[in-house]
């Protein structure tokens, strides 16, 4: 290499370093009085799961825009947001969190949405230290429902345990009552990861309670080959399969089930196995497949008409593929945005109509009451279940609707929201939270304030 060339490379390297320094130090927060509410979005637009994320951010951003454009912000406080790419990896998620946690231009971060089960788990303790609530809708640690031990983790709406319990209750609905569960064989085919294993303990407990046989079949990540698992299903002949997949695992499961002749209308997918993105690649054989979800699909909810009128039709939407309007993931984004916005509204009612910081938003979340009436005002009746949170209950809802794929779209087939056995679940959850508190040396908060 010539001398001059070396010099050139060196000078480029120096220039690059200078850029890093300026870029990274440039994010410091100014102390001015902010008039906006900052909402950082951890997204994953590249990598193996991008396809599921993209419609979800669209739903979320569209709702934020709707609040800004139509309602003029939350009580006049406009929302600002920017994105940080996580690739759905823990390390990048932590980097994003650290990058945004101090707020932006004096505008504080009220709530962090980690968008990823492993990321949320890695941030559990950091969020307590920084006093920023993590809202994890339909993922995250189940025992974080106990807000006395996990003050800043909010597995709002539908935890994995509620998911499993509701799925069992749906099966009971189909076979004619909980007493008919006795003697049934229910096989859970799960993604072999902490997420997939989270429901094992609970299902064993429910099996004992209701007398069904609990079969657990792991599928190793990524799940693109499942002939052995479904051969086993064929041998064991379960009555129902509860499918807790993620990513490519779900379509392969549906296809392989069809391959071994297992009826897909006896497979109930979990939250993360129940979107258009999960069934469409499976093609025609997915017809009849069921899935339980807190985010019912559909574009006919009242809020969707408003979103269409004020956002989509005006070309303001973040959605690139209009087909996804009203899809499960789009609606999950809308749901998440509703919860976040309402929590801030609740906090504003208490602390004043100004930007809310993390500590105040935590109060807002713990006093959030999304009643039927309020949901009707928002236009989310049927889309979002009623929700009432407290320090002892960071979940609130705990019910899901069951959808069935007709080859083109999802249709709700359950009788409204299928509730989980929360009275059965909560003592177990509190027990596990207490164990966690003991291990970590945490003194649980007093739940009365």
């Amino acid at each position, binding site marked *: 290499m010539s001398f001059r060339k070396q010099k050139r490379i060196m000078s480029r390297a120096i220039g690059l370093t200078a850029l890093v320094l300026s870029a990274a130090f440039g994010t410091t927060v100014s102390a001015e009085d902010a008039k906006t509410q900052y909402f950082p979005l951890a997204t994953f637009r590249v990598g*193996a799961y991008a396809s599921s994320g*993209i419609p979800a951010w669209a739903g979320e951003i569209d709702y934020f825009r709707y609040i800004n454009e139509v309602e003029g912000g939350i009580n006049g406080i406009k929302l600002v947001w920017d994105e940080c790419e996580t690739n759905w990896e823990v390390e990048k998620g932590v980097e994003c969190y650290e990058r945004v946690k101090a707020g932006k231009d004096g505008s504080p971060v009220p709530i962090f949405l980690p968008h990823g089960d492993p990321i949320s788990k890695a941030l559990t303790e950091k969020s307590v230290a920084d006093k920023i609530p993590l809202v994890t809708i339909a993922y995250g640690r189940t025992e974080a429902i106990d807000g006395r031990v996990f003050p800043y983790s909010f597995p709002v709406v539908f935890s994995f345990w509620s998911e499993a319990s509701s799925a069992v209750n749906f099966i009971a609905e189909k076979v004619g009552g909980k007493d008919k569960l006795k003697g049934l064989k229910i096989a859970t085919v799960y993604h072999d990861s902490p997420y997939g294993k989270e429901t094992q303990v609970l299902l064993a407990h429910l099996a004992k309670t209701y007398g069904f046989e609990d079969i657990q*079949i*792991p599928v190793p990540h990524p799940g*693109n080959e499942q002939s052995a698992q479904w*051969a086993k299903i*064929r041998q064991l002949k379960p009555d129902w399969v509860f499918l807790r997949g993620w990513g490519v695992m779900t379509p392969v499961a549906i296809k392989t089930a069809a391959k071994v002749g297992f009826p897909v209308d006896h497979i109930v997918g979990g939250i993360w196995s129940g979107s258009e993105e999960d069934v469409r*690649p499976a093609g025609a054989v997915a017809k009849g497949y069921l899935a339980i979800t807190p985010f019912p699909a559909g574009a006919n909810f009242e809020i969707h008409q408003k979103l269409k009128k004020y956002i989509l039709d005006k070309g303001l939407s973040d959605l690139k593929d209009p087909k996804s309007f009203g899809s499960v993931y789009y609606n999950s984004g809308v749901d998440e945005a509703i919860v976040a916005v309402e929590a801030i509204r609740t906090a504003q009612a208490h602390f004043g109509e100004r930007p809310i910081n993390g500590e105040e938003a935590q109060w807002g979340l713990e006093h959030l009451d999304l009643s039927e009436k309020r949901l009707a005002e928002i236009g989310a009746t049927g889309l979002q279940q009623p929700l009432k949170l407290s320090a002892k209950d960071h979940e609130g809802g705990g019910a899901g609707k069951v959808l069935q794929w007709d080859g083109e779209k999802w249709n709700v087939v359950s009788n409204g929201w299928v509730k989980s056995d929360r009275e059965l679940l909560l003592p177990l959850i509190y027990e596990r939270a207490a164990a966690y508190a003991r291990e970590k040396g945490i003194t649980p908060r007093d739940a009365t304030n």
Partner: protein
Amino acid sequence: MSFFVETLVGGLLAGVMYSLVAIGFVLVFKASGVFNFAQGSMVLCAALTFVTLRDKGLDFWLAALITLSVMVALGIAVERVVLRPLVNRPQITLFMATLGVSFVIEGVAQIVMGASVHELDLGIVDTPIEIGGVQVSQFDLAAAGTAGILVVALSIFFNKTRVGIALRAIADDPQAALSIGIRLQTLWQIVWGVAGFVSLIAGLLWGARQGVQFALTLVVLKALPVLIIGGFTSIAGAIIGGLIVGAGDSVAEIYLGSLLGGSVSTWFAYVLAVAFLLVRPAGLFGEAPIERI
């Protein structure tokens, strides 16, 4: 017993799918000594291009033809832009370079064609059929048939054509190959082109099997132990290796998995591969060089 046979047959047929990806590796490794980690991205790229064209309403064969040209061009481009400047570098550097290439392919493919998932329907019915009391997937049989045809076609190519013979020769002695009168670089381009073709076939079959999505790139991880067992330089080895890995994985998942708690197929094939290597340090069909000092 029939359960065991079914598991075994299912595994063998899945193994053929791994072989399809492994063959792409073997071709490139044999000719230019590069372990092409970007093969997985090429499979994704092929499938994604194909379904995007089909979604635009193109005829099946026209879409296949255009995709084929794209893949061949991609293969040749990788050879020219990346590997030619890296000639005579250590294998591990070349390997890392192909890792970089896979980032580029994945990024650009998704910029151009988006990240959504697609269904890919090849029109192969997939209802199970019974053969002698054993349930077999029609799709898997068709895939195995395709793999068989591919192997036969490739062996005719390598044994009967002038280019093919030259390609076999360069694996042994690049100088000797030159005497046939074809430039080494031309040969490399041809091989990369053929590798592009093989990734098209693998992309179509894998895409039909699991939908066209990013996770297609992960099939590489299943192809690796196939290569180790079969040897990096043998197409026959890739097929035999695929069958061993497929059958081994399935049977292990059922029988060993119930002992150890499942998911043993994440490592079983690799441990099996190491066991094979300890007996034959260059794979079943690979040749270990004689050490001279």
